[in-house]
């Protein structure tokens, strides 16, 4: 698995983490550590580009969930989040996913992560959504 980082300017600066290769139990930690490094370096809004990920297991989903938790806004009201989750209206404002392939999308759906992670197919559109 290879990782690359770019930045985009929308309403806010968005860090794009491009993943190339399988996200499984042998690679998720490298991915998760890179995201942690970005967040501790000041990234507040992260777009994970999954376009070149042919395969993702639950290990990759756990990493995404961990990153989601790190990016949760400090002032985010837990009650509002929970209510939004129940209503299906809440999506993380700080972590979004770009262009997962069909199999990876199926895996995201099976885990339920798609319920709170916004999935966008277009880079510009994804950046504008932050």
């Amino acid at each position: 698995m290879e990782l690359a980082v770019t930045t985009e300017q929308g309403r806010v600066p968005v860090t794009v983490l491009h993943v190339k290769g399988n996200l499984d139990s042998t690679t998720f930690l490298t991915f998760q550590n890179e995201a942690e490094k970005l967040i501790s370096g000041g990234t507040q809004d992260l777009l994970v580009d999954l376009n070149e990920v042919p395969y993702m297991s639950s290990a990759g989903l756990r990493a995404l969930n961990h990153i989601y938790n790190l990016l949760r806004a400090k002032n985010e009201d837990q009650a509002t989040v929970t209510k939004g989750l129940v209503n299906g209206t809440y999506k993380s404002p700080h972590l979004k996913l770009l262009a997962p392939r069909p199999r990876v999308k199926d895996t995201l759906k099976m885990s339920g992560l798609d319920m709170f992670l916004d999935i966008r197919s277009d880079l510009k559109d994804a950046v504008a959504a932050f």
Partner: protein
Amino acid sequence: MRARAGVTRSPLRLTRTFEGSLEQLALMREFVVETAQVLGGNQEDAFACELATDEAATNIFNHAFETGQGRITLTMWRQDAQVVTRLHYQGRSFDPSRIPEPSLTGPLEERPAGGLGLYFMRQLMDQVDFEFDAVNGNVLTMRRILNIPERYGFMELQIERPSGNIAVIHVKGSVDGSNFKQLIEQVETLIPQGVERVALEISGCEYMSSSGLVALNAITKLLRGERAPDPENGWAVLKTLDDARSAPATAKPTLALINPTPRVDRVLDLAGLKNIIPTYSDTASALAALG
């Protein structure tokens, strides 16, 4: 000839042992994807087996083996319409009923490791069974009902005799565990009639399971004047196809395939048969090669 699905007993059982740690995962997945397709699964079935095996093996390496190192023997076979994937290993046991179902309605909070993996296994498979045995080893068996075509078990054979020693058999429908022997028998009845070379026109064959591959091997042997191997010998039967490679390069092929569908073509390719049995896109070129 029309055959109806009976009790399917696929003769193939494929086993491979993986020793090491998580770095074995990629090899295990590759084995499972290929085998699931050779056993008659489509790409969706193969993906389901791939992900479920990955989740199972990840849990075993991480939690069952004290050092993260160990040996897992992976076996796959067909049982009726199911593909069965079995992992056999020595290691710590656990109580699957005590792994809570993950909450899927929100962000996952901290929970015992393996929960999401186990959930995936149960989502992707129709049945998941654990048997723990400290002496003989633990066995995890996962069964999935394959996406098999509606015409499973229906095979139609039509014979054409373009010249004295050549027969073209048009195969329609599905060549699978319920009827592959009839295809072999068809060739057996043609040989005493003077047939020495056979072209199987399979453009109308939507589905070919591993049993169909066994039939192709048996036909190759029959046409070379050898006895057909006992199809119950399973994978060993297919392995004897290696004999075909040692045949003189100048020898004309005795069996040719015409126009396989993409799905069947993929199965032939994965099983390595495309290197052994020549395949042609039309009848004329197949007859030219055989004649």
